[in-house]
């Protein structure tokens, strides 16, 4: 079903190929950069983005404008602007779709963010599974350079920026910015605990700003149409912009849908993703990737926005809506999620390295009919311990476990009482 909502990020999306530079230009592309190069200061750009309520789309929802402002005016050079295309949150594929749809929108956003931070070196950090996307970006960066949008003295402004594509060799933790910093510097990608923050001392001790792919893609539109327009795209007062929701699991039409922030969960699933397949009933979903908590049916009408989910103790994360039906065992699903996290943990700190296999073992025993009553408080206690891990990986990892125990404890109990998975 074609969406009736304004398509901003997907305005040039085509079923079978990328948008060329010429097509992007015809849709207003690189107009923001031309305008900024003539009339704007880096501070103006920062302020406009701040006013637009643009929150980071990579999962943490940090205000983009604030991150750009965090680079001190007298900070040393060279400064770095990094596009985080290491999209590894399970259920998330918006960056891949966006790069294949309109690479220049991301490149222009990266240049504008670079301008705002006065960064001279741009890097796109991309996961190895997206080799085709990496090649598209390399080719289009070259085309943008030939057109004068990159390189020395961009559009006569005096500002200079080069962009390189940095391929990762595949590990979930590399999406975390401090781990990504180590990866980029050719070190083992364990995370670091700030301070110092990357905006102060990032790559090789220089100020570095990390932004997600679709956060960057929003920036040209903020500049072209203004902060008020951008805020107005959202259906909630606190939101700003549209959001690409990637819907997967038990739905008829899995895929990426660009919708206003604040659109009800029910609408995303039933109208845009075509509802559940015949014979399937909605049981739960993860609203924003594997490191968010399950939403049960009682949240079916919730407005899908960062703030509205935060208010009820949930997170919008990456906006990757993964739908589970009544025939899917949520203990088994949580076990699968924990297997993922246990394997992907970098192993640097003890709570994460030791705690996740412990939780996995408890869940596996419950799923296999060997669970005991006391496993539930053990799971609760262990999940709490993981909050004292070194980085945000572990608290994210236990989110599905917490969701399972909060909303589906009955299902866990049934496993224990019946001494088997009731859905098998």
């Amino acid at each position: 079903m074609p969406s009736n909502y304004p398509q901003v990020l997907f305005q040039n999306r085509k079923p079978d190929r990328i948008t060329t530079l010429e097509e992007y230009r015809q849709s207003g592309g690189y107009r923001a950069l031309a305008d900024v190069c003539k009339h704007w200061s880096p501070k103006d750009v920062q302020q406009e983005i701040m006013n637009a309520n643009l929150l980071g789309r990579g999962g943490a929802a940090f205000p983009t404008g604030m991150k750009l402002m965090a680079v001190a005016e007298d900070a040393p050079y060279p400064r770095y602007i990094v596009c985080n295309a290491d999209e590894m949150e399970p259920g998330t594929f918006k960056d891949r779709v966006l790069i294949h749809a309109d690479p220049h929108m991301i490149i222009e956003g990266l240049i504008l963010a670079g301008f705002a931070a006065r960064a001279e070196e741009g890097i796109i950090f991309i996961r190895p599974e997206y080799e085709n996307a990496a090649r598209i970006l390399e080719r289009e960066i070259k085309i943008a350079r030939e057109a004068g949008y990159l390189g020395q003295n961009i559009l006569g402004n005096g500002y200079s920026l080069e962009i390189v594509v940095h391929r990762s060799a595949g590990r979930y933790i590399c999406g975390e910015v401090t781990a990504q910093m180590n990866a980029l510097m050719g070190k083992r990608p364990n995370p670091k605990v700030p301070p110092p923050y990357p905006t102060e001392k990032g790559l090789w001790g220089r100020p570095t700003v990390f932004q997600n792919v679709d956060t960057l893609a929003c920036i040209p539109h903020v500049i072209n149409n203004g902060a008020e327009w951008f805020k107005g795209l959202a259906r909630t007062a606190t939101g700003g912009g549209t959001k690409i929701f990637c819907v997967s699991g038990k739905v008829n039409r899995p895929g990426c849908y660009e919708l206003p922030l604040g659109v009800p969960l029910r609408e995303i699933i039933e109208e845009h993703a075509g509802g559940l397949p015949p014979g399937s009933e909605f049981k739960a979903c993860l609203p924003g990737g594997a490191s968010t908590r399950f939403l049960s049916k009682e949240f079916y009408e919730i407005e899908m926005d960062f703030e509205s989910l935060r208010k009820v103790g949930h997170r919008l994360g990456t906006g990757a809506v993964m739908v589970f039906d009544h025939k899917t065992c949520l203990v088994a699903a949580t076990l699968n999620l924990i297997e993922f996290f246990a394997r992907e943990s970098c192993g640097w700190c003890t709570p994460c390295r030791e705690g996740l296999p412990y939780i996995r073992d408890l869940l596996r025993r419950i799923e296999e009919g060997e669970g005991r009553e006391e496993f539930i408080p053990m799971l609760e206690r262990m999940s709490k311990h993981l909050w004292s891990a070194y980085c945000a990986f572990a608290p994210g990892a236990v989110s599905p476990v917490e969701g399972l125990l909060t909303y589906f404890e009955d299902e866990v109990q049934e496993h224990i009482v019946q001494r088997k998975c009731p859905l098998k």
Partner: protein
Amino acid sequence: MLDEELRGSLTRKIAGIEHPRELVVDVMFALQEHYGYLSDEAVREAAELLDMSPLEVDEIATFYTFVYREPVGKYVIHVCDSVICWMGGYESLRDHLCRKLGIRLGETTADGLFTLLPVCCIGYCDRAPAMLVNRQVYGCLTPAKIDEIVAKLKDSAHMSGE
């Protein structure tokens, strides 16, 4: 051993940048391409090229999913076992692949053609269940489709004289 052409191109690439170590993944990939996997010899060569110790290279090599420190087949199949593919039938597809190839996860076929490995979410949840073969994606998998893919890969290996 590295041929002069590859050594030369890597040396030039490294000489052109301020911080050589940042190329460690690119160099490991290039050597892996050359040797078929990242052998001990390749680790030493990467270390020498990048002015790092072999241990420093190895601690990075062993961290990443797509760097192979053991010999692998001509085609490395990474089957996604994360939650959406799992819900879409990963377990039966994995069993089908194991039967078809006569190996378990983590093993390589006797003819050296296929290595089978599990992998975390590859970002193709809209086409689950999915897998990668030498980093090319195949989605909406069924047993029949897997048979077709394996047959095609075998054909193209035979044509290239393997």
